[in-house]
């Protein structure tokens, strides 16, 4: 594995702080606009407002795990440590959004379906996806050797991300209680703008979270490398 000088170079960026502030302000604005302006749904009434957090959280989960897939494959091909650290950062952020998606789905399910949880294809496959990435994070905390940790993580990360299309298509392949994918083409136009702006705000927050988590991973790794170098120098 290449532990380059790049790992040791840990910049501190004010621009990313501003980006984070902008992302959260964008989310406040998007939510306020969506809540205040979207009309009540014919069937669900105002309950449809949960859609503005549940659907973007699900999309961002998928996207974060696609980042894991891309950087896991990059790691397998190039053996660059920074690829492993980006994949791990995206996996943690993705698992956070995945957990949020499940909880928001339960909050939607209780009034809409009369049950907090139903063992149907979409919910079950989303739960399996969540468990795979919780396993991925647990694996990383159990393996001390950085190279072995990166190799095993890349394999599990790629395997986990392959499940994303299955989760996405589950509502069409196994037609059960969950509605088909919410997208601008399947929704009333009155809700499309609110969904898009909230999805963009969630996307900005995901980028910010991954960047900060990556910065944290690099700092920890750089400290480990200094400690290792000091220990070798002392022998």
């Amino acid at each position, binding site marked *: 594995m290449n532990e380059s000088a790049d790992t040791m170079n840990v910049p501190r960026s004010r621009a990313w702080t501003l980006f984070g502030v902008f992302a*959260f302000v964008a989310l406040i604005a998007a939510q306020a606009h969506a809540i205040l302006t979207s009309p009540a749904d014919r069937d669900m009434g105002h309950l449809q407002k949960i859609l503005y957090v549940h659907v973007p959280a699900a999309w961002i989960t998928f996207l974060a795990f696609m980042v894991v897939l891309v950087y896991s494959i990059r790691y397998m091909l190039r053996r660059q440590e920074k690829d492993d650290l980006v994949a791990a950062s995206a996996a943690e952020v993705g698992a956070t959004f995945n957990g949020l998606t499940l909880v928001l789905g339960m909050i939607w399910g209780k009034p809409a379906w009369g049950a907090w949880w139903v063992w149907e294809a979409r919910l079950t496959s989303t739960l399996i996806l969540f468990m795979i990435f919780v396993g991925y994070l647990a694996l990383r905390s159990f393996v001390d050797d950085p190279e072995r940790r990166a190799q095993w993580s890349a394999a599990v990360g790629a395997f986990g991300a392959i499940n994303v299309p299955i989760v996405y298509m589950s509502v069409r392949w196994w037609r059960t209680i969950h509605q088909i994918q919410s997208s601008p083409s399947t929704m009333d136009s009155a809700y499309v703008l609110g969904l898009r702006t909230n999805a963009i705000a969630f996307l900005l927050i995901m980028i910010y979270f991954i960047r900060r988590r990556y910065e944290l991973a690099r700092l920890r790794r750089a400290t480990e490398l200094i400690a290792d170098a000091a220990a070798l120098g002392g022998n």
Partner: protein
Amino acid sequence: MQDQNLAFIGAAYAITWGVLLGYLIRVHRALGQARAEFESASKQTERAR
């Protein structure tokens, strides 16, 4: 029914913000701690030289 729906909507947004702000605080705290450890380790290495 309508009031009950408002409670579910309120819970959904409260949980969303709780998770987002909770994760933000967690990562920022860990970053501050990691930065302090990194600077401390760097200084120790410089002193050893």
